């Protein structure tokens, strides 16, 4: 793909880093962008007005279809196509907004909710109009009170200005938006678990089939679940057209997209970049983005799309942020979360930490995930605590197999939902590439030389 090395990235030649308009982050610098006045002053609610006064629901849907915008929540399924799965003539229908952002490394939806709540509300209204939803539920992660507060304020203002509720803008279109919030459970980000939670239940996923939300979702009625960023793009699409969105970036990953780059980089941050054409390397190294790896070190591994993703390594840096390409390369862009690990990273500890996340967040509904993820976590913890056993790696892989037979990508699963197999990703990634680090831990009870040892409880490094 690229001959360049880290020392001489070709894009450092001015102009080679692709740029584009800010579709959803445009108001982040506007001090009062989150208020009703600030929003309207900067062109807000124009798309809603346009849609309600000059477009049919079908036309709105068609624009979104034309845009080929892929969902930003993780699965990357085109929103326009998903809306098309709603069975005709079955009402009421609901829109559910997934603002539960909890995938490790992911930081974008919170910004969109805190800094531009009206944009999200406008997007939700457009979606409701397009699919004929009777009510929308905006489910914000429980641990985000500022986002909840800003959305509550925005909703109260929007209702006061007749932008939500009965006969919006004097038309015969009526719909309500209800702000809801969670209470601390990652799995509730999974759409069917989110629906359960909205019904006041334990957030445990439903089986698909038969419970695809579009067919049998909230209260067993047709339901569309969309991510916050997905919906926040709708005002731009309606204002500028679906084709304009489609033409912004690569044909296989359209539009602009937000990526959060964290970990060992000089300037971690959240960037809205042209989808599909920007490369990982550009994000990491270009001065307008992260400005390189900390202390000029090398990338040892990186997470390309949230903790559930299979890890990438140095050789993947030049891949473009394009769904098809990344899928092909054996991982995923997921939720747009990139975590860079430099060559001082203790890969076993990194692997353990991600597995611990899934073990703690397993809902417990199905056996392989409930028992398997915990088991994996225990073994890994024992290893970093210095009590590894020679057959641990074999057991780790065997348990992984029981959760995700064949350790294939995309994963096969014995579980109900993809959370269980997500715990397998870091292990499958790390054991293959850094087996020596595991062996060293098991043999010596400590990491290899030259990596940073974290002060993790229970390990020798914590006092």
């Amino acid at each position, binding site marked *: 793909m690229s001959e360049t090395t880290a020392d001489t990235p070709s894009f450092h030649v001015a102009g080679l880093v692709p740029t584009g308009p800010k579709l959803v982050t445009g108001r982040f610098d506007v001090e009062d962008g989150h208020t009703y006045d600030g929003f309207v002053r900067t062109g807000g609610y124009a798309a809603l007005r346009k849609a309600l006064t000059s477009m049919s629901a079908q036309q709105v849907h068609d624009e979104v279809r034309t845009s080929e915008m892929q969902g930003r929540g*993780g*699965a990357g*399924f085109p929103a326009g196509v998903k809306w098309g799965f709603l069975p005709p003539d079955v009402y009421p229908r609901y829109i559910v907004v997934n603002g539960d952002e909890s995938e490790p490394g992911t930081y974008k939806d919170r910004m969109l909710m805190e800094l531009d709540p009206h944009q999200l509300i406008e997007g939700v209204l457009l979606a409701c109009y397009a699919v004929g939803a009777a009510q929308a539920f905006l489910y914000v992660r429980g641990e985000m009170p500022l986002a909840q507060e800003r959305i509550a304020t925005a909703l109260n203002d929007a209702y006061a200005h007749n932008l939500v509720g009965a006969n919006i803008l004097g038309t015969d279109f009526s719909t309500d938006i209800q702000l809801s919030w969670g209470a601390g459970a990652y799995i509730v980000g999974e759409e069917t678990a989110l629906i359960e939670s909205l019904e006041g239940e334990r957030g445990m996923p439903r089986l698909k089939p038969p419970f695809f939300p579009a067919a049998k979702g909230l209260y067993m009625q047709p339901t569309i679940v969309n991510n916050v960023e997905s919906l926040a793009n709708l005002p731009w699409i309606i204002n500028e057209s679906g084709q304009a969105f489609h033409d912004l970036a690569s044909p296989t990953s359209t539009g602009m997209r937000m990526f959060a780059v964290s970990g060992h980089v000089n300037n971690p941050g959240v960037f809205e970049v042209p989808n599909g054409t920007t490369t990982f390397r550009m994000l990491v190294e270009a001065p307008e983005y992260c400005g390189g790896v900390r202390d000029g070190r090398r990338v040892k591994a990186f997470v390309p799309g949230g903790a559930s993703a299979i890890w990438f390594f140095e050789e993947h840096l030049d891949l473009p942020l394009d769904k098809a390409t990344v*899928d092909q390369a054996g991982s995923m862009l997921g939720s747009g979360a990139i975590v860079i690990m430099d060559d001082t990273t203790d890969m076993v500890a990194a692997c353990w930490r991600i597995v611990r996340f899934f073990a703690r967040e*397993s809902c417990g509904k199905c056996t392989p995930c409930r028992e*398997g993820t915990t088991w994996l976590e225990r073994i890994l913890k024992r290893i970093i605590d210095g009590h590894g056993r020679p057959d641990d790696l074999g*057991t780790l892989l065997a348990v992984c197999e029981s959760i995700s037979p064949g350790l294939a990508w995309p994963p096969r*699963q014995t579980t109900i939902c993809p959370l269980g197999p997500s715990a397998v990703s870091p292990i499958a990634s790390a054991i293959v590439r850094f087996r020596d680090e595991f062996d060293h831990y098991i043999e010596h009870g400590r990491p290899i030389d030259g990596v940073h040892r974290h002060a993790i409880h229970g390990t020798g490094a914590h006092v």
Partner: protein
Amino acid sequence: MSDSTKNEQVADEQTTAAEPVAEATEGTDENVATEVAEDAAAVIPAAEGSASDEAGVEADQPGAAETDSEAETTVTTSTLTVHIDGGEHEVEPGKLVIEACLDNDAYVPHFCWHPRMSSVGMCRQCLVEVEGPRGPMLVVSCMTPVSDGQIVSTKTDTVKRSQEGVLELLLANHPLDCPVCDKGGECPLQDQAFSHGPGESRYVEEKRHYEKPIPISDLVLLDRERCILCDRCTRFADEVAGDKLIQFTSRGNDTQVMTFPDEPFASYFSGNTVQICPVGALTATPYRFKARPWDLEQRESTCTTCSVGCRTVIQSSRDELLRYQGVDSDPVNWGWLCDRGRFNFESVNSEHRIAEPMVRTDAGLIETSWNAALKGAATLIRDTLADGGPERIAILGGARGTNEDAFAWAQLADAIGTPFRDAQLGDGLPATVLGLDRATIDEAANASTIVLLGPDLKEELPVLYLRLRDAAEKRRSRIVEFSAVETGLTRYAWKSVRHQPGTQTAAVGDALADEEIGAQLAGGDVVVVVGRANLAESTHATMSALGALRAAVPGAKVLPALRRGNVVGALSLGMAPAAADHDGLAALNAAADGGIDLIVLVGADPLNDCPDADLARRALAGARRIISIDTITTESTKLADVVLAAAAYGEKAGTTTNIEGRVTRLAQKVTPTGTVRPDWMIAIELGQMLGDNLFGPGHPLGRVAGVDDITDAIAGQVVGYAGVTREALDAERDGVLAGVVATELEAPASSIAGRNSYDYRLMVSRKLYDRAVGTAMSRSLANLAPGPAAHLHPLDLDSLGVADGDDVKIVGAKATAVLAAVADASIQRGVVWAPFNQGGGRIEDVIDASAPVTDVRIEVIQ
């Protein structure tokens, strides 16, 4: 069949899985299964088991793979062809792959799936491979509907490896206490570990620890270390019983089954959870550590605690009854039992059992030989006949025994010539209700409209409550309830009409005039469930309301909600009074007035059974002689001159008839206590003592060598029982329906006078747990009776100036009872409700059987 699999049959739904499962889908599962089928048609078969939604596999979205339309055919064809492990099988559409496999000898291990509950696909043990467009896919067979041409493999390496993997994970945290576990030996997890397990466990980490068993109710203990979180008990509590008192709590690896901290799992159906638990996590206090499964012997039988007729197996070890388990009878109980029926076997083993016959001497009742006792009894009968004739003898009871018992006693009554006989003691309805066009339980539970005109079924016929609740919950039926108090089914009723005690006819009239209710009753089939709602009210109001309903809805069928175990059998087989003026109440009245000299109590205890306790007392005092045939010393047996020791449930064989008229077999499982004999034998021996030609040759009881001969005699003699032959009973596991002998219902006019100075109307009805011997003599159940109380509306309490819990005097025309007042917002104003037969303040003394309704005054105790 090995021992362990034999036992598993009982412990689990295996009892159904064998064959009744074929019909099972008609009930609960059908809805679920078709839903699944429809969805599969709409969505993709490809996603499950392979698609990650994170990975963006597009097939994970509905419609994406509509190309594969094979599922669509499921809806149209009458049977489908499914290939299982190479064999071809015809399967009904709507079934699940797991059902198709189990029905066709391809065993699929499973834990969470249960044929009578919705599929949840949680344990993941039932993975099989189904051929898909992209080759074989692992699917959970309990959530996958069958489709035509489907190719299922249950034994490939992939399937085996996955099943082993899941099993290893299930066992990872499971304690190694099988040797001390009640379930050991009949444990699906243990069995599976043997047959499908990986052998050695690689789990070296510390196992989950919880406090070992904690009581979650008076009857059930929970060991969370053993629990595999299959959701069976919690699903049962929610879907089947409607008592959502146990729930999953916490999350992930900390998930556990728990009650709310303040609220135990006080469900009338809690024992079912113990039965369906696939491990030893839930155990029942009455059975705990009593036996090992391999020591248990069992026989199929029917529960006669009430007249629903749930099928059971009764199990014993060393000749002691130890456990009853529900058997899935499709038309009746679907495998469920209520706790009273399940645990009252303890009363059979009670130390209060009457083991030997007794006669009264100057020293009181003393044990004697059968010969002497029977002679004594025969003498009493003969003397009474000689002194005053057969009109001075009453034979009461028979509803607690078998068909054969009742028939033999009815024959004896015929031979003696007494007109006074009744299997009810003023606590039921006129036997004529049995002559109306009878509905089966299935018909009721599938009717468009179920009209309830009777008692709280949850308290009196608990498993009928489950069936009707299911009908309403699954939207098959709408319930229209007429009741003076809130009942267990009120929550599920489409309309619940509250009326003052005694005014049901007017309430029915108003309802019939209501447009919506009228339209509902006019469209579709209607079943009226009729019984005795209020023991402080005569039967007139109910019978006249029934008459009004039948006149307005001529096609309505009737399901009699009479309670005592074999009351329908007894009444049908000759223990019904010829006319109302010779029924149980009439007999007691006559005895109280000196018109009857001898009362024969066949398993009847008027002092506790008759609503009007004062009448019962006067009757037993008025009759000079009492013969009691009973199993346990009751207050009535204590007054008897001769006590004939009767065999109890489990100690004798025979048949019984449930409310539908369904006749099933009862099994003898243990050796009878002492020298007790079955009632039928006592009747025949008494008959023989009374005179050679009483049961002479040619008489149906002329040549009885065993109980089977009486079963034959019934089939030969009793209209309606002609089809109930032993051959038919052997062939039909679910029993044989006896025919209905039509009678005309003369609906009495019902009128009640004003209340005068008695400003409260009394309502007395039964709770599941009371002081009836079967309950009171069962150690585990004895303490569950709520105890005496007077429930009043809080505003009535306020106006009386009485606080919740204060004692009040309930003053009737005949007597006064002192009861603790309970503020209960579900009670109508102007009504006082009290539970029946709870001891203590004796509301039964206040009930006046001769009044249309008992009115009372409430006085504050200063």
